């Protein structure tokens, strides 16, 4: 949520010409401190927003690679949990916040570096150089 929008009234929003966007946090490689319950909650909220895998080390010492796509927060860490997909595992998996000892934003942030401005710049440069069939292509899945 951006403070700039929050200060507007409904009438101002209706009259808005250019609306603020969202800042993209650089989280790739980040290892958050999980010293307090609040830090655990904040870190997992960011993991939910993150467009890459994270590596979770559980309190029992297991290391799990996970794409966190849901979180449900309860009154305590025990009754708060994440839901995630792990590579090479078919179904959805679930883990309580209380089981998590360490979190690392280890996977590539799939939302980073795909700036529209970069495409515009690259397109104009390639066009000026006489290039044909200019395109961005999806990453290979294998």
């Amino acid at each position, binding site marked *: 949520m951006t403070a700039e929008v929050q200060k507007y009234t409904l009438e101002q*929003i209706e009259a808005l010409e250019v609306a603020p966007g969202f800042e993209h946090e650089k989280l790739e490689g980040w290892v958050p401190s999980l010293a307090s319950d609040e830090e655990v909650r904040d870190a997992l909220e960011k993991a939910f*927003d993150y467009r890459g895998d994270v590596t979770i080390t559980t309190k029992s010492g297991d290391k799990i690679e996970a794409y966190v796509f849901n979180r449900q927060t309860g009154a305590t860490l025990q009754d708060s949990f994440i839901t995630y997909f792990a590579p090479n595992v078919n179904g959805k998996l679930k883990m309580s916040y209380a089981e998590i000892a360490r979190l690392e934003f280890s996977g590539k942030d799939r939302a980073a570096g*795909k700036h529209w401005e970069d495409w515009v710049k690259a397109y104009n440069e390639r066009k000026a150089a006489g290039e044909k069939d200019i395109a961005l292509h999806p990453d290979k*899945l294998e």
Partner: protein
Amino acid sequence: MAVPISQMWTVASYVLKKRFSGQKRYPLVLMLEPLFRCNLACAGCGKVQYPPHVLKRMLSPEECFAAVEEAGAPMVSIPGGEPLLHPQIVEIVNGLIARKKYIYLCTNALELKRRIHEFTPSKYLTFSVHLDGQRDHHDFSVCREGGWDLAVDGIKEAVKRGFRVTTNATFFDGTDPNSVRAFFDEVMDMGVEGVVLSPGYSYEKAPDQKHFMGRARVRRLFRAILSNRKPNWKFNMSPLFLEFLMGDRKYECTPWGSPAYNIFGWQRPCYLLQDGYADSFKELMETTKWEEYGVASGNPKCANCMVSCGYEPTAVIEGFGSLKGFWGMVRGTFSKYKDPHAQKLLAEWKTEPHAPLVQIETTNRSLEETNA
């Protein structure tokens, strides 16, 4: 309006039935995303930004049918990702036709011409082809030169084979309304049933987009585009929604009108906003804090949204749910929306060499006055 009578009747009777049964919240269109993988890599698209192991996952036909039956909506839109990359998409489509659901298969059509022979024409099936304007605008928008030509080949082949086809465009800041109007002429000449359009949205997951078109600017753009209509233009949308875009109506979002189901589950609260997932449709409807969404809620994430998936259900429910709304819909269907001010707006519109998806500039003029 280009929607066939049978579809209108199905939707109208569904809305009336829900209204008479006292049901307050019900879906009109299920947004069924069977996969996120795509054969385009549009800059700024938030839908495809997942690790490979997630992009490889797909809903099975059985999961799709279960979701459709659970939601009970009369219409099913199948976006993605690119649905034609799903190896069982034909089975999914045929299963939904057998269930008498009106399907909008949303495709970028790069694969349409090659795969069209696998499908059978039906009044229940419409190919909703993503075309963001004229050739250059579309190719630039999807970051692929030649994309427009492939899509148009697919459209022409589908029309020739007797399929229902619409085009589906999202317009962002920088859009040239004169070009959009020329685009309407072009697609009507291709023989499509109608045009579907929507303003873009300030999608939180889109990377590093600084500023978006505010509501006033959306209204001004769509007033320029949609006023003084040509007689041959057809829209596969509620006329009331188009009036909302032009600034003639004030609507609130109906976020449960287009619920989304995908590989993660039932998306809260809507197709565009991702605030978590529910395991069942019942759970989605009963446990989502709906009052926290929509412009009136004050939720900044919803502040600028005027997108069809939230506001067209409002228009459709009004259109089929009250005599006043129905009359507005009938009148809108036949109106050309004569407007000299909009004509002047069009004539004086400053065009840009290419229409960037976002407005990148300072926010000093963010609350400037508008004539819209």
